[in-house]
């Protein structure tokens, strides 16, 4: 029987954000925007959804005088991502 895909992760942009954070220790909002090609507004909404799900933590700091947003995955996010990939493999393998 196929496992259900996590709806929080089964979205192009949220999955892209989560994948970037899986491959790095932490990433700046600007970096994520560059790599995903998303608009700032849409990215903010999706990042907020991931944060509300407890999959990432968002830190607001300053770079000089400029505000900066840094994202980092949480333990819960890592587990959810691993389960999601496992479920995907099940679909492809099946």
């Amino acid at each position, binding site marked *: 029987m196929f496992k259900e895909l996590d709806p929080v992760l089964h979205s192009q942009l949220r999955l892209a954000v989560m994948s970037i954070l899986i491959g790095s*220790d932490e990433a700046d909002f600007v970096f994520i925007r560059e*790599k995903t090609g998303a608009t700032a507004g849409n990215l903010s909404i999706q990042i907020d959804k991931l944060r509300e799900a407890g999959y990432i933590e968002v830190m607001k700091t300053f770079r000089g005088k400029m505000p900066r947003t840094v994202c980092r995955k949480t333990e819960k996010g890592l587990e959810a991502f691993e389960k999601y990939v496992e479920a995907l493999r099940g679909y492809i393998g099946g």
Partner: protein
Amino acid sequence: MKYFKILIMEPLLSEKESLELIGRMINSAKNNLQKGLGNVFLLWGYLVAGISLVIFILLLILPGDTRYYAYFLYALMALGTPFHIRLIRKMGQQQLVKTYIEKIMDFVWTAFTISIITVLAGMLISTVLVLPGFADIEPGYEFLRWFPWTFVTPFMLSFYGFALFVSGKAYQFRPLATGGWVCWIATLLLIAAFHHPYLLMIQQMVLLISVIFGFIIPGHLLNKKEHSHV
């Protein structure tokens, strides 16, 4: 007045597309060269090269035992610290993503710095504490005062070799790994030449050459690589 709620439909991904997207995004941060890293290598490269060159000249021109006081110049390495902090702070501000490799390399270079500081500080303290005790030393045994300093250069080069080799492999930047090999070979040669009458001068020259290969050349190449990526 009517309000319309605009729903943005996100494209649904197939399972295969999802896996492809994951792979692509995970790899996106991999080859991210840390901006300003070359300047850190150049700072320490030129500083250590300068100090070793001055020590070499002083060992050559100062008379008798007074020449060994030249080793106190190693304390000048502390001068690099404020500049180093400034460079690291600037790098942190410019850095948009921190990879695991960079995180681990931070630990490696912190461990390297602690190793160097413990050796140098230990030697400086030992020299200050022990020198008065050797006031009435018998003629012909004066070298015992400064003998431990002969170990400093091989120690430093061995640490350099370790940190440079690991950095070179982690960042997949060959000049750093090559610099590591140069430092290790230099360590081997210096220990093998331990009984050479001009060992102290040879040590400073070898340190200078190793720093050029291990720090200065890779530092310039890192900067060149960074600029070519802009």
